[in-house]
């Protein structure tokens, strides 16, 4: 049975991981397991000149560490992520692959000098987690502005979209899920 493995990468605020696990399980109709037992050291991916972590390296490390896991892997961290050409990323995923990572750093209102908002933060984290996992199921960005697979490169865009898949993406997701189910 396929499942989603939720891996925390420190630094990470202790809250919200269990709530996230529950809501992801609803979205994907799959069991979500939070794995707190392993600690992935993000230090090798750290770039001191940028004060950020190279997300692609973290993805490779995840894949090595959980190579025996059958389903999808989603890492969650508070660390600020980047890929070399871009100034930052909210997350990264292997398209039609196994692993994804999301950073909560830029989802927090306090990052922008605003008062914290726990509900908003939780919602944004859910949307980005669903979005990156969506990529691992082969979904690409969607034109529907309120679909969770809509590309968002700013928090305002994340707030605009919902945490749900539009009907087209939902259908594609269901098809991939069925294929995966029959394969296993």
């Amino acid at each position, binding site marked *: 049975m396929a499942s989603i493995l939720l891996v925390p990468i420190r630094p990470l605020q202790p809250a919200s991981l269990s709530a996230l696990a529950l809501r992801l399980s609803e979205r994907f109709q799959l069991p979500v397991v939070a794995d707190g037992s392993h600690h992935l050291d993000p230090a090798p991916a750290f770039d001191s000149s940028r004060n950020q972590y190279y997300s*692609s390296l973290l993805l490779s490390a995840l894949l090595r560490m959980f190579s025996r896991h059958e389903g999808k892997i989603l890492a969650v961290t508070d660390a600020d992520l980047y*890929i070399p*050409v*871009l*100034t930052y*990323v909210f997350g990264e995923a292997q398209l039609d692959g196994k692993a994804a990572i999301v950073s909560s750093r830029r989802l927090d209102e306090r990052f922008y000098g605003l008062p914290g908002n726990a509900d908003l933060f939780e919602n944004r984290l859910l949307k980005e987690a669903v979005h990156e996992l969506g990529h691992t199921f082969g979904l690409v960005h*969607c*034109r529907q502005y309120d679909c969770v697979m809509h*590309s968002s*490169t700013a928090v305002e865009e994340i707030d605009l979209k919902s945490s749900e898949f539009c009907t087209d993406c939902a259908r594609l997701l269901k098809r991939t899920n069925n294929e995966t189910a029959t394969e296993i």
Partner: protein
Amino acid sequence: MPSHNQHRASLLIVDDEFVVRDSLSKWFRQDGYRVETAEDAAAALRVMDKGPWDIVLLDIKMPGMGGLELQKRIKEIDPTSTIVMITAFASVESAVQALKEGAFDYVTKPVDPDHLSHLVQNALRQKSLSHENIRLREHISTLLMPDEIVGDSPQMKKVIEMASSVAQTDTTVMIRGESGTGKELIARIIHVNSPRKFFPIIAVNCGAVPESLLESELFGHEKGAFTGAQYKRKGKFELADDGSIFLDEVGTISPRMQVQLLRVIESKHFTRVGGTESIKSDFRVICATNRDLEQAVKEGAFREDLYYRLNVFTISLPPLRERRSDIPPLVQNFVRKYSQAMNKAVTSVDPSALDLLIRYSWPGNVRELENVIERAMVLAAPPTIKSCDLPFQVLQSEPTADGDSLEAIERTHIINILARNAWNITQSASVLGIDRVTLYNKIAKYGLKRP
């Protein structure tokens, strides 16, 4: 951002750094783009063949040929490519140079993802707009409004009826008729009333293009296919994708081209001259000829199989002399058209001039009529066109006798001589070699009246 079912936009990333190529291509693939990468200029030029690329992201600093030089080369291969330069802070000056040489924009590494994503979307939007613009312009410049078809004669009504009924189908149409009868106009009416109307109708005058060029004109050519083929060029069949292709004077093409034409029409597949890639195009064929194709088939000058392939539904346009009742409304139409175009207040045609126009034999059909009116509009003193404004050829074409009897011929001859001499009786009598009294008698006998 493309949706799942839209045509996928394509992106070529040229950068010598693996991490840049790798991360950018992954990032754009998630956007649903078709992405290809190249590590240097040579590889990029090789990949250009897999194009066309909607957007090329180009690193300005690379070992070997740099981004600036590569930009020039890429523009040579595909002048419509949209190039976005990637630079480090140190090379902003050369990025400005790149902009001057036609790059769409530049970004500095590392780039804000929000900025990059909007930049690429804008570039794609602009590209599709300019593409659409070119297509619309071509369309407008050649599109004649169907209201230019003037004529209430039963023959023309039948033609219009046939054209509009065949328009809805995808049937190949052959339009026959003398030069100047409006074959292309009918082809356009068929196209604009067909489901293909939002796509172009591409007209090729097979008779006007030299035989040696017709092949590349119709099928396009690859760069270097022959001397002077500096750029890749799309052929008319490729341009007519989803639209119609109008092959004018199809009877003039050589036997060799006939074979190729037959194959394309049957398979809808072809290759560009000098190319190997098979190109598919969905077009509807409308062709026209003023030749006697049946005779040409008999003589072996026109392939029989092609003839049957083209001659599915035939519309024959009557020559103007067989529908003289259409001449007055046509004249009115052209007078209105040229009075607007020339800003000249000529609004009517003198009855005697109209009479001449109606009786002329019009070997050049409607085109000739239009030219005659245009010329007359230049000469005419507002507000009326008179007989003297009509060109010599028309005046010379005098009415011919209604019958073979001597009397009929005499009557017509007297009318002509009187007209030529502006009803000057003395001059006319002297030309006819009779005296004035006799002429008066004959005028009375035949009931002739001064116009």
